[in-house]
């Protein structure tokens, strides 16, 4: 492209101070609070989450809800958070890698890997650990297809993952002739999705679904460690922030971006196992039925403060955004029982996403801010 937005050869001398610096000086307390809420996504999410919990508890206490909005109820709904957080983290990785990074195919990878896992564990009699490893590796391979095309060949992520979405979901349907796999071993997996009470804690403590401990927390912890503590995390943020500068700095941009897509695929592979356990069946359309899993995952990531332009995003944001959505939905289901309630969840998801996106745009303009 021969176009450039700032013509001329001598760059204008940089200004001595920036908007952020100016904004920091001599502002009133309410102004400061507003700035923190607008620029620090974590703070905003915590505030929103607290608002939801308090409002719903009030409604519950005054018997406006069809069932109590209790801690045990909230704990039970966490089962919905497991795939959402994990795929949200997968999107966090690829979106943070920059250059329009996104993965529309995560749901299709869940479907296809679920079938592969179903075969291995339910039909071929593999042990659970072996089948689990297979699922992660296979998911990673699917991600490698995306990553290879995007990072090494320069395909646009949106369209590439749209294409692989079609490919993977088609294969998932074809591989067992549209039939689910629900042999006995697969059905027995359901128990792993059930809620458990924690040892060493009083019985009053709510029972939390096992998947939270076996999948959600380990994945979140690993992704957090990778992003915040490892050299890979630094490289990922670097290429997402400015991949030209990263190249000049000597970072292997293509390999770093490729790895992000592989990781997203591997996480999707894990989600496949979770989903099979949750349904006690490997369903060929588990990840793409209805709106699929990709759209909610992207929504969660954006709501959690992941910048669609890359380079910005934190694990805590994704986790908090998921809790907000899951517990808001849980409240809506009690407040508006039945079908209307589940429909209202879509509304909440849409409104919250657009609100968050517009807010991002606004706070960037106002504060030149970041996360």
């Amino acid at each position: 492209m021969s176009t450039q937005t700032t013509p001329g050869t001598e760059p204008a001398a940089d200004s001595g101070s920036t908007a952020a610096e100016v904004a920091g000086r001599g502002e009133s307390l309410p102004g400061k609070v507003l700035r923190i809420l607008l620029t620090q996504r974590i703070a905003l999410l915590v505030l929103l989450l607290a608002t939801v919990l308090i409002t719903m508890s009030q409604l519950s206490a005054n018997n406006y809800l069809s069932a109590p909005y209790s801690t045990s109820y909230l704990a039970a709904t966490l089962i919905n958070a497991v795939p959402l957080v994990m795929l949200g983290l997968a999107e966090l990785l690829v979106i943070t890698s920059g250059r329009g990074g996104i993965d529309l195919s995560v749901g299709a990878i869940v479907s296809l890997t679920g079938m592969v896992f179903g075969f291995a564990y339910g039909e071929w009699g593999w042990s659970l650990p072996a089948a689990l490893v297979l699922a992660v590796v296979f998911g990673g391979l699917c991600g490698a297809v995306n990553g290879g095309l995007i990072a090494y060949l320069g395909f646009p992520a949106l369209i590439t993952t749209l294409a692989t979405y079609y490919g993977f979901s088609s294969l998932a349907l074809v591989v067992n002739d549209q039939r689910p796999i629900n042999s006995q071993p697969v059905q027995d997996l359901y128990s792993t999705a059930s809620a458990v009470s924690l040892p060493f804690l009083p019985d009053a403590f709510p029972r939390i679904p096992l998947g939270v401990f076996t999948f959600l927390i380990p994945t979140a912890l690993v992704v957090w460690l990778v992003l915040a503590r490892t050299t890979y995390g630094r490289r990922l943020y670097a290429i997402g922030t400015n991949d030209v500068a990263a190249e000049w700095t000597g970072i292997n941009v293509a390999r770093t971006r490729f790895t992000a897509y592989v990781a997203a695929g591997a996480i999707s592979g894990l989600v496949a196992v979770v989903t099979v356990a949750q349904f006690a069946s490997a369903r060929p359309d588990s990840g793409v039925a209805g709106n699929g899993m990709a759209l909610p995952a992207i929504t969660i990531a954006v709501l959690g403060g992941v910048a669609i332009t890359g380079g910005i995003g934190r694990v805590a944001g994704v986790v908090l955004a998921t809790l907000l959505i899951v517990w808001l939905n849980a409240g809506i289901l009690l407040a508006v029982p039945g079908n209307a309630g589940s429909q209202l969840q879509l509304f909440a998801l849409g409104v919250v996403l657009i609100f968050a996106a517009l807010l991002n745009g606004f706070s960037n303009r106002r504060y030149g801010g970041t996360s």
Partner: protein
Amino acid sequence: MSSSILTPAGRPDGEPAAVAPQDGGRQRLLPSPVTGQEMVLIVVIALLWLALSLATPAFFTSGSIVPLLVGMTPIALIGVGMTIVIITGGIDVSVGSIVMVCSVIVAQTMVGSGLPLPLAVLLAVAIGGVLGLVNGVLIAYGRVHAIIITFGTLNLFRFIGLQVFGSSTVEGIPRTLNFFGRGEAGRTLGIPHSFVIMLVIAALAWWYLRHTAGGRHFYAIGGDSQAARLAGISVRTRVLMAYVVTGLLAGLASCFVLAQGTSSLAANVGSGLELAVIAAVVIGGTSIIGGRGSVLGTVLGALLVQTVATGVTQLGWRSQLSDLFVGLFILIAVGADLIRQRTRRAS
């Protein structure tokens, strides 16, 4: 004419050189109306049709071709709008939800009050336009990337649709819309009405995009919106318009979708349609980065996708395989675009 610096090696996909041959002393005023990718598509579709009619005698019968042509109309029609949106550098993933809202409202109104055909179409188009306007305003004025906004409105519109649906499917839809269907009522001289309507609209859009100042401005915005603004183009208005047009066409397409269905309508109507439409647009050669594309390519892309779906079924293969082919076609189309860009940059 001897080959010049202007016919560089940068057209691997056989796209005719940008400079028209000056045979007969008369210079062409515009680049060729059919791009290389479109030529390739035409050839591929022709070969597929040939192969299919040889493989299954049932293919080249009206019982097979008419459903194929009618079946592609919603995708092609929305694809016209989506082409404009993508040319401006945007995207609209909410079209499936728009189709859902429009079709359910129209269906219920018809069940309730026996709406006549013209009013039904008008209602669908009007609702589609309003929803498109919502997208357009948020994208043009919110300065947030289109994909985020339309992911949001996808959910919002679906919510509206489900609210209208109530808890059950819509049953007993009158046959008012059969004029657009694949049955006898939907054909004149054997040619399906919906296909003709789609062709007329696509031709108008093609002409508008190619020959009017307003049409060319969409390309300029997609090429470099900043430069377009400096050139005095009202970027916001244009962007807004692209989404409204897409909404209007999605509204009309919902009538076609209704006409193709049975007398009942399920809540999953339109789901996944956005991806099929984007696939048709991309296969048609419209660049996802913006600035280049054509409605003709989109119509051909939709035809190819539908041909593959029909072919896969008629060959007795698993119907789900057609999605795999769609995915492959997308990758080939994008790959061809990338090679084209690279060789041009290198020359």
